[in-house]
């Protein structure tokens, strides 16, 4: 098992990415979650959701994709 849970939301329509991230948080409390996605509005949506949930997160932009890492 890897050290983190990976959630790949690339190419998914709204609001699936946010739903998947929320599911992952419910299923893996306390673990490190690594979200990879590609659409700018998806990134905004996920970051907003995490802010509402008061989670600290880090976002990295890598060749057209974004990666958000946080502790569930």
């Amino acid at each position, binding site marked *: *098992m*890897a050290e983190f*849970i*990976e*959630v*790949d939301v*690339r*190419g*998914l*329509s*709204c*609001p*699936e990415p*946010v*739903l*998947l991230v*929320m599911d*992952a948080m419910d299923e893996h409390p306390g673990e490190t979650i690594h979200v990879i996605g*590609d*659409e*700018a*509005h998806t990134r*905004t*949506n996920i970051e*907003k*959701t995490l802010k*509402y949930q008061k989670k600290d997160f880090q976002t990295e932009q890598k060749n*057209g994709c974004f990666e958000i890492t946080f502790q569930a």
Partner: protein
Amino acid sequence: MKLFNNTWKLAIAGAIVGVLAALLAFFGNPANMAICVACFIRDTAGALSLHSAAPVQYFRPEIVGFVVGAFLISLITKEYKATAGSAPMIRFLLGMIMMIGALVFLGCPLRMVLRMSAGDLNAYVALIGFAGGVATGTLFLKKGFSLGRAYETKKANGMVLPIALIILLIIGVATGAYAASTEGPGSMHAPIAISLIVALIIGVIAQMSRMCFAGSIRDVILMKNFDLISIIGALFVVMLIYNIATGNFHLSFSGQPIAHSQHLWNILGMYVVGFGAVLAGGCPLRQLILAGQGSSDSAVTFLGMLLGAAFAHNFGLAGAAAKAATETEAAVAGGPATAGKVAVIACIIVLFIIAVTNKRNLKRGQ
């Protein structure tokens, strides 16, 4: 994106769109249609002679403006991304279905809000259906509905629709080749340049704010997030003020322009739109914006809407507007004819089939 990063800024975005919609109505667009996406796609279908309903034929520069505005701003902000491949034929079908539902009610979710702001009680009835449709779609989302992933495609692929629309507009203006209504809603329009410029601005704002009518209710149900609905709320308030100030506010069921009071069919028509929009990942306006920022799946949804509008008028599915009796003609109750009612029921059945048969199948790698 930073420009619209919190709720009150999003509300301002909605208010600006409201002012712009009022501006277009002021310059000649049908008053409580202003920038209705379903109505304008229908008029565009008519202009291209995909249907021949004489009162609703006009190549609407607004449709071009919404798509191209989103296209240009996404190029500037580098959010443009050519994608495709998330169940395009199902999305085509969803586009058709949304349009048929909208034309039975006589308006997309945007026009529903505009009609509400003018006191049209039929639109409040339709809102029940729309919210119900969004709730149904959201339920399936929770149960794992998915149309699958879109993948990055050739950059030019995503540019086909915006560029084609620009060229079609230029051809229309230069040659006058398209059909154009001489009476009815299609004959009422702002000057082309004003329509286009205002729509470009709306396209930009809608892209940056992610404005979506289906999404606004969906987000409230799904995650108690009021961001998107604040845009719609502000739009409603601005139009309400405009309508009251200009004497266009009449709280009633009857005597509303281009509307009917067949409550059941208003509810079911908008139920179809709400349900379809959630499954498609956005309302008709949002589909145009996504198509502008490179989504071929949304461009295909647009084509579905265009064909849906043509079907709706070629086969008598669209609702008829109610008319009061005149000296020469009897009153018309309006609403959909039998074919339209059958079509709405069929659309609902197809939506349930699509919702049940498309499940998420993603490996969430550990």
